[in-house]
């Protein structure tokens, strides 16, 4: 399968434009407003109670189902968001100037960080209290999925081959019909791929979001995540083991019933005309196709869509000149004026927020801790690279082996690593190890697999003629690694490392501050800072922590990963 880079990297520009800055202000304005409003809500909700959880393994199927449904609900919301937001951005140049930088900023915000803020907000909004918590959890998972899906859809819409659009117009398809018959199908393979990546990342968040404490408020939603939280509280390793097993099964079922069929189905929409050497297969999809159940189910929808095409006006000629300049001007003034007002308001709220409770020493503290976390992420990505790159090359050059290992690596990347934290933490507590060092590996526990499966993909795609040429000239040993293997997999490695490092930043919030029963183990870092602030219900420090972490992530992307990615693409991509 083609491995795509995270969308925040594939943009070319290195320097932030003024729109990036404005987008950042808008996003943080919203977070500040939510945080401000939530502060007053902490106390009255402190009594939230739901049914007590059970640690019996027999309760797990129901919890697993609840967790899965939350995930599915979030995926549907993400899809709706994708189809509206990305389409708007692709169709309106005016809207795109704001919407795309917004996505870029949103992508760099650590999801676990603002969880506490959104929780209280949704609890206040929703009529029933548990329902509000459900909304908040789904919203959190949604934010971990939606941005890259929307970005990929936007990019696809912008790159529909012009001759397909022309053919659609010549044969009289309206804009509405072209969207469903040309643009959406064209975008489908990359959208499905990004859905998979999103899901793979968001198991981590769904598990996390089920049990959270903000200040004095503890919210527990029945699910695998809260089951684990209870098990940690009661120090029950056996229960944790059961939960891990249940999670494995859930991911397997999800893969078989949802994603494999989706990927196989989306393969039809690939635009490259060559026959895929090995088209993906899915027994579920084959079953549905043969039974024609889907056909029968989809027929009324297809018919409805077909009727809707006729209601839309026929295609029109593209004007050679811009439309009436006066109107364009007026619309510009209205749109940018509205934005200016919003941004001014956001600036005002941020200013108020900062002036009340953020001091320079707070900022310095958060920045220094941020640097500590950054060093940790870089060092661990480095270590993971040294370990997994040679293994990935070894596996990738052996087709039989890589057919077995590749799905396992992808599977491990999807597995929520935080379920495994208790094992590590109980060991740290037992042997009294230094948390600054020994908590760090947890950050890459779930994300290192991206490096492995990308390198495997790169090595197995290495043209056999290049390998033969190497063998023919007797290139061996270190020379072979330096001149053939490493350059060959480099673009793939970079893609994997970027994904891994993005995930590790998010994991830092979960990995730098962990507890085991009444023991708390804490490392020095920005993740622990945010987690600490969340436990204390200190919204000023939460927002400050999020802002510093987003800034560091954005900075690392711009000055390190993006240039590296494009260098790899230019110099080492084999086409």
């Amino acid at each position, binding site marked *: 399968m083609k491995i795509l880079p995270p969308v925040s990297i594939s943009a070319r520009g290195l320097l932030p434009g003024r729109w990036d800055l404005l987008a950042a202000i808008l996003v943080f304005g919203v977070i500040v407003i939510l945080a401000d409003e939530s502060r007053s809500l902490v106390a009255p909700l402190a009594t939230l109670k739901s049914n007590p959880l059970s640690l019996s393994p027999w309760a797990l199927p129901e919890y697993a189902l609840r967790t899965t449904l939350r995930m599915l609900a979030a995926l549907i919301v993400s899809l709706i968001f994708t189809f509206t937001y990305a389409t708007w951005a692709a169709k309106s140049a005016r809207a795109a100037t704001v919407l795309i930088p917004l996505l870029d900023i949103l992508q760099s915000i650590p999801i676990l960080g603002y969880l506490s803020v959104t929780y209280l907000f949704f609890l206040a909004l929703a009529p029933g209290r548990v329902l509000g918590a459900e909304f908040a959890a789904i919203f959190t998972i949604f934010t971990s999925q939606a941005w890259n899906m929307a970005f990929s859809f936007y990019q696809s819409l912008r790159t529909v081959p012009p*001759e397909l659009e*022309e053919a659609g*117009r*010549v044969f*009289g398809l309206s804009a509405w019909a072209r969207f469903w018959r040309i643009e959406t199908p064209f975008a489908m393979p990359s959208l499905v791929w990004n859905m998979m990546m999103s899901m793979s990342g968001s198991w981590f968040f769904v598990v996390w979001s089920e049990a959270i404490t903000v200040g004095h408020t503890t919210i527990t939603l029945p699910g695998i995540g809260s089951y684990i939280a209870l098990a940690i509280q009661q120090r029950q390793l056996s229960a944790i083991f059961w939960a891990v097993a249940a999670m494995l099964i859930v991911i397997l079922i999800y893969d078989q019933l949802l994603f494999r069929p989706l990927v196989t189905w989306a393969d*039809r929409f690939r635009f490259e005309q060559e*026959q895929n050497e090995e088209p993906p297969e899915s027994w579920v999809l084959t079953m549905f196709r043969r039974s024609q159940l889907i056909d029968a189910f989809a027929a009324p929808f297809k018919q409805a869509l077909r009727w809707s*095409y006729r209601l839309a006006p026929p295609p029109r000629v593209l*004007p*050679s000149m811009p439309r009436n300049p006066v109107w364009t001007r007026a619309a510009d003034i209205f749109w940018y004026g509205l934005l200016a007002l919003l941004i001014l308001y956001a600036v005002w709220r941020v200013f108020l927020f900062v002036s009340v409770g953020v001091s320079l020493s707070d900022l310095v503290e958060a920045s220094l801790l941020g640097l500590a976390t950054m060093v940790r992420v870089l060092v661990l990505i480095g270590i993971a690279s040294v370990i997994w790159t040679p293994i990935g090359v070894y596996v990738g050059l052996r087709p039989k082996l890589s057919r077995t290992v590749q799905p396992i690596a992808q599977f491990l990347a999807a597995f929520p690593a935080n379920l495994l934290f208790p094992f590590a933490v109980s060991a740290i507590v037992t042997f009294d190890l230094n948390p600054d060092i020994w908590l760090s590996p947890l950050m890459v526990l779930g994300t290192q697999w991206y490096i492995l499966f990308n390198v495997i993909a790169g090595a197995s795609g290495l043209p056999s003629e290049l390998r033969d040429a190497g063998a023919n000239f007797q290139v061996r040993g270190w020379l072979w690694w330096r001149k053939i293997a490493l350059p060959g997999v480099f673009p793939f490695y970079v893609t994997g490392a970027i994904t891994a490092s993005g995930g590790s930043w998010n994991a830092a919030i979960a990995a730098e501050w962990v507890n085991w029963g009444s023991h708390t183990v804490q490392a020095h870092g920005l993740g622990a800072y945010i987690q600490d602030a969340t436990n204390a219900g200190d919204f000023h420090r939460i927002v400050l922590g999020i802002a510093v972490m987003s800034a560091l992530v954005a900075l690392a992307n711009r000055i390190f990963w993006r240039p590296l990615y494009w260098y790899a693409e230019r110099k080492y991509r084999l086409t």
Partner: protein
Amino acid sequence: MDAPELLEVRDVYRAFPKPGGGELSVLEGVDLTLKQGEVVGLLGRSGSGKSTLLRLIAGLAQPNGGTVTYLGKAVDGPARGIAMVFQSFALFPWLTVLENVELGLEALGLPADEIRKRALQAIDLIGLDGYESAYPRELSGGMRQRVGFARALVVHPNILLMDEPFSALDVLTAENLRTDFLELWSEGQLPIKGVILVTHNIEEAVLMCDRVMLFSTNPGRIVTEIKVPMRQPRDRQDPAFGALVDQIYVEMTARRDKGPKLDRIAGTGFAMILPEVPVGLISGLIETVCASPYNGKADLPDIASDLQMEIDELFPVVETLQLLRMAEVEDAEIRLTETGKRFANEETDERKRIFARLLIRYVPFAAHIRRVLDERGSHTAPKSRFIDELEDHMTPDMAEQTLSAVIGWARFGELFAYDDDTGMFDMENPA
């Protein structure tokens, strides 16, 4: 001819805004009519605006000036009754052959059984029987373009627009498809009344068209119209056929001082837009013309068919030879100059020296880069500076193309070196 007029194009002008301001015109003062029963060819090099004209007729874009009228009505969008066949086929890979063909009928809102009936008829007519449920990626190029034809014919258009429909196919497949199409057309089996064919293949134009409009480049204009009087089916071996092909070659290579500007390198001095012609092709053509049976001079049509080159490939090489004064062209005959002959008979090192001298003398921008490097103490200069200078005269795309042509030639002549990683020009070559 008193056949009714299907389409009329009057004084059409089309331009794009240049990045630095101003406009770049791609079509100027174009007049064209299409009458019932006619096949009209638009023949020219790439960049002559013929595809743009086709898109104006299809209602995909609007002219900045002038009018396009179809059956007496101004074209203000894709019109019913005008269908198009695309160079790259433009089939929807996620639809089967049948679904691709049905697409245009569905947009017309016909009842389902009518759609199916007509689609099957078209598939039958164009020889795609048995392929209905195949996906385009399972088909060969020729079969894919047949789907393209079936999809266009099924809507029973009055006018069929063809945008280089055979140029993505290999020679045999293209000929097979052309013959089949002409047979159906001359037997009156096709549900169409007129055809406009865009092509850069001279023989194809003479084979298929009743009238051929010759386009010049930069900007695109119709320079002349050539009538093809022979009846279908036409024979490529017919002397009249060969004479017409020759005549078009002569028209297309006519020298500037004798007639209207046709396919020559555009611009002078720094404004020269250079084609990216590899040195291997330049020396290859010189050697071929120098050797027997040509012995220093050759008819371009002969060379073209000998080397299996389309004019889009051949003309840029010929123009480069003219630019470097290694050959002259008159009446579609290429003749090597003394320099050209010397180049042909020398070894590599001497060839490099000759080539470097010619570059300095006749390619002002190459001489300019060399001068800048000589004058600077560091003997280096960034690419961006030269691109900026070129963009004063041309679009960014043309500037990139021109600079990369100069770099390619200068590397052969060892005039200067360029490092793509750093984007720097310098005088050093790795020792």
